[in-house]
């Protein structure tokens, strides 16, 4: 894909991020961190793609390790966020 198209997407996504995230109240800052942290596990897509196209043993191993780390990041991240958020209650 065209580099400038990708850069455009990159910049726009950063602006969208700034706009939404400034509205997150301080009480939810920890879940925001762990939840966004889980989203950074998106690198798993890259890990899956490289693992599946690898031809040498060494590269497959690299891909496999990346899949393990990224899965740990995202599964753990979403679960722990869910665990935290389900504790937030209103009065009464």
């Amino acid at each position, binding site marked *: 894909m065209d*580099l400038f198209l*990708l850069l455009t997407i990159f910049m726009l996504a*950063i602006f969208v991020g700034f706009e939404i995230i400034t509205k997150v109240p301080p009480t939810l800052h*920890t879940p925001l*961190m762990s939840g966004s942290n889980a989203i*950074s596990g998106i*690198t798993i897509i890259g890990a899956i793609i490289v693992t599946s196209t690898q031809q040498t043993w060494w590269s497959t191993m690299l891909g496999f390790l990346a899949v393990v780390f990224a*899965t740990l990041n995202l599964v753990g991240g979403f*679960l722990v966020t869910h665990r*935290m958020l389900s504790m937030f209650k209103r009065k009464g």
Partner: protein
Amino acid sequence: MNVDTDSVKNILYLLASVLFILGIKGLTHPRTAVRGNLLGAAGMLLAIVVTMVGSDHLGWLIAGLVVGGLCGIVAAYKIEMTGMPQLVALFNGFGGIASALVAGAVLHDYLDKAGDTGLVQWLTAEGQDPTQVIIATIASGIIGAVTFSGSVLAFAKLQQLVSSASNTNPLLKVGNVLCTIVAVGLGVVLFMNPDMAGLYWVIVLVSLALGLFLVLPIGGADMPVVITLLNSYSGIAAAATGFVINNTVLIVAGSLVGASGLILTRIMCVAMNRSLTNVLFGVMAEVGEGPSSDEVYAGKVKSASPDEVAMLFDGARRVLIVPGYGMAAAQAQHVVSDLADLLMAKGIDVEYGIHPVAGRMPGHMNVLLAEADVPYDLLKEMDDVNTTIEQVDVALVIGANDTVNPSARTDPSSPIAGMPIIDVDKARTVVVVKRSLSPGFAGIPNPLFACDNTLMLFGDGKKVIGELIAAIKEAG
């Protein structure tokens, strides 16, 4: 046919990106936050399934998903809420190293396929932009590796496996600068000679050292800044990986996380009135000839027993509880919540005042108190409680120190001068629950403890609050 499957894939990736944005949007309110997180997870699942369809090496992929998934589940359910900062740090690091590994694996893959053609020529023939691929690979390697080693060290400090004291040894600064120069310099060499794949791993090693130099100087109370910064890095590393493999969902998700981490970093720095560079190099403002703790405290500190403090609550109408890291360290959140319930049952208006940097990560106190069943609408932000603090009958400070130190407001030569604080000294009476008069992270005495309207309740937070509850019940 090929074109069609690609289009379908891209539309589903777009859907995943939209789900991530809606997911984070959900986190802007406690009522919608659970759903927001689930939307994010759904987006992730969708992206994974779409990518898996038609993949080779399915065995390896599933094995990786199962191993990583099981470890993630165990970690997420085993962790105590007080240990949340270190867990988030660790997860963060794993995301970073995954990005660095992916970029490295892609580089090797391309080199294998390019063979004798040479990487640049092969990429060009494949319709890819060699400059973009190589620069993004190097960026992903550096940022991902820094995220990993920095996060692991942050984890070790928070878990108290290594000392969490601030280390201002000037050699660390030299190491920091040196590693940055070497990592970027080697990056330039790799950019000139992209066929030297081995160099990539040297860059990764140097960047791992850089991550350590980055986090080593940072002390306990500055941890929120470094965790948010590393959070941002892990997102940027994922976005860089997106540029390596030309994948938009990585770019969108990665930049969202990068933006989120940067905003939180800024909020933390503002709440400490320190610049990011000062935090990163462990620099506190120059300490002038400040008063010694003897001058501040001598003969003026009044210590009280739980029984005496219990009497204060008779006739009190408004109570403000101000927690700090000490509450987390003493695991006192449940007894604090019990105390608040007891006071509310007596008809007293109880609120919590939360300083933005209380604890070891943004929102740390809020999560602990939520665990102890404190409704989130009782947790007030610093600015809100400060406007009405004169009407508070009893301000109960539990394990907080620098965030309630009036020197920040009154003494322009203080190292924390100008830092926004919760003005508990303006309340009618202040009760400080603390082990001793030892200074907080800033290393300075706190005149609050010697105020006329302050009573010190010395002891372990959990134990002392328990005694206080008993005393209040006894008094009826």
